[in-house]
């Protein structure tokens, strides 16, 4: 009986590993023309309580480190794939305005009041696109095991990585390319899982 249980655990180990691996939302590829530059805005971090959607302090969950690691992994990955990236400079008046409006740029339709700033900033920087990214984390109760009843539960926390490539000249205000990746646990910036998730986020941006 014991041997049977060990064998069962061994057989099921890959299924539990599979359940932890990141998942992507879209399979749409977008090719950035080689002569086009991409203005990269700093990642937008959002930590929320899963019950109330109330904002939480990112510092309590290594938020700053997560943002820094995300930005550096993004730059490294996209440059390796031949995309001409220009990280936005918050000190620049136009780019600074965009950095301040990241939250609005993440919406499915870019608000019309930001579009002129978007056009002016990309023109001044010599870029054709703006890449906006976000790490949204929902923090909820963790997993448990009750030895009396045998009840178990998995952690309800998860993180969604989001990227949108915006063309300032687009007439409909919709991003040209969108991708989402979900990690089914709190993001730990120094882990292989987080690096894999960032890579999956941009693997269809060529």
């Amino acid at each position: 009986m014991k041997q049977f249980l060990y064998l069962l655990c061994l057989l099921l180990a890959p299924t539990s590993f599979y359940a932890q691996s990141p998942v992507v939302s879209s399979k749409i590829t977008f090719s950035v023309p080689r002569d086009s530059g991409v203005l990269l805005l700093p990642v937008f971090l959002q930590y929320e309580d899963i019950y109330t959607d109330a904002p939480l302090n990112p510092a309590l969950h290594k938020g700053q480190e997560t943002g820094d690691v995300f930005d550096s992994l993004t730059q490294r990955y996209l440059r390796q794939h031949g995309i001409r990236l220009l990280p936005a400079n918050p000190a620049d008046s136009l780019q600074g305005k965009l950095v301040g409006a990241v939250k609005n740029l993440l919406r499915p339709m870019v608000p019309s009041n930001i579009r002129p700033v978007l056009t002016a900033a990309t023109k001044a920087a010599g870029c054709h696109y703006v890449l906006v990214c976000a790490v949204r984390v929902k923090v909820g109760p963790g997993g448990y095991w009750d030895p009396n009843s045998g009840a178990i539960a998995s952690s309800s926390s998860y993180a969604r990585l989001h990227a949108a490539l915006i063309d300032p000249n687009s007439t409909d205000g919709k991003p040209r390319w969108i991708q989402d990746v979900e990690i089914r646990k709190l993001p730990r910036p120094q882990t292989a899982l987080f690096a894999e998730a960032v890579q999956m986020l941009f693997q269809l941006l060529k």
Partner: protein
Amino acid sequence: MKNSNFSICSITAALSALCVILSFIACAPRNVTPLYLEAEFSKTRIAEPIYLLSFVDLRVDKAKNLNLDDNAMRRLSPSFEKKGYGPLKAMKDRKWVESVVEDDFTHPDSSFLAVLGPEKAHYLFCPVLHDFKSKLTFGSTANAEVSGYIVDKKRGKIVWKHKGLGQAGQGGLMGMAMKGLVEEEAVNTALLSLSVAIPQNGIPKTVVAKK
């Protein structure tokens, strides 16, 4: 001696019974303050039927078909009736919710809300599935995160909002065999925690004055 033993036993039995009753009271669903309730809506008596739209699916991976609409109708409609509303009218047509995104509820636009759902409707109940995951290891677990919005179509406003979370699981071989049940329990728990925050149907001042 026999008498004292008997009295100790009877006290223990009474205490056990009291514990059981108290635990039932503690576990019974009770009214919960919703995350958002418009003051005007809480005072208005709703006589029209509330239309239940299909679930807005905001999951990243939508591969698993959860068949949530029937479940929502079964769980939510009795809760609405208990709170003094009429039975919900289920609208199974997904055409109204196919293009809805999270932003439509977090940054509501009155012109969008005014055209959401069937034309004849005044109030809509929009359930949203944010996340669902199930896991099979040596046992099975499932988590569900849902939220609900009551929309006043005529005013183009969200008048009520709440969220529900369901965590369920069972260890061992039994748990593995019960994966489907565990998934259903997670969804039902989330819907139940959503339904307990539905406000009591308001009583208009005119009716109170007549009495």
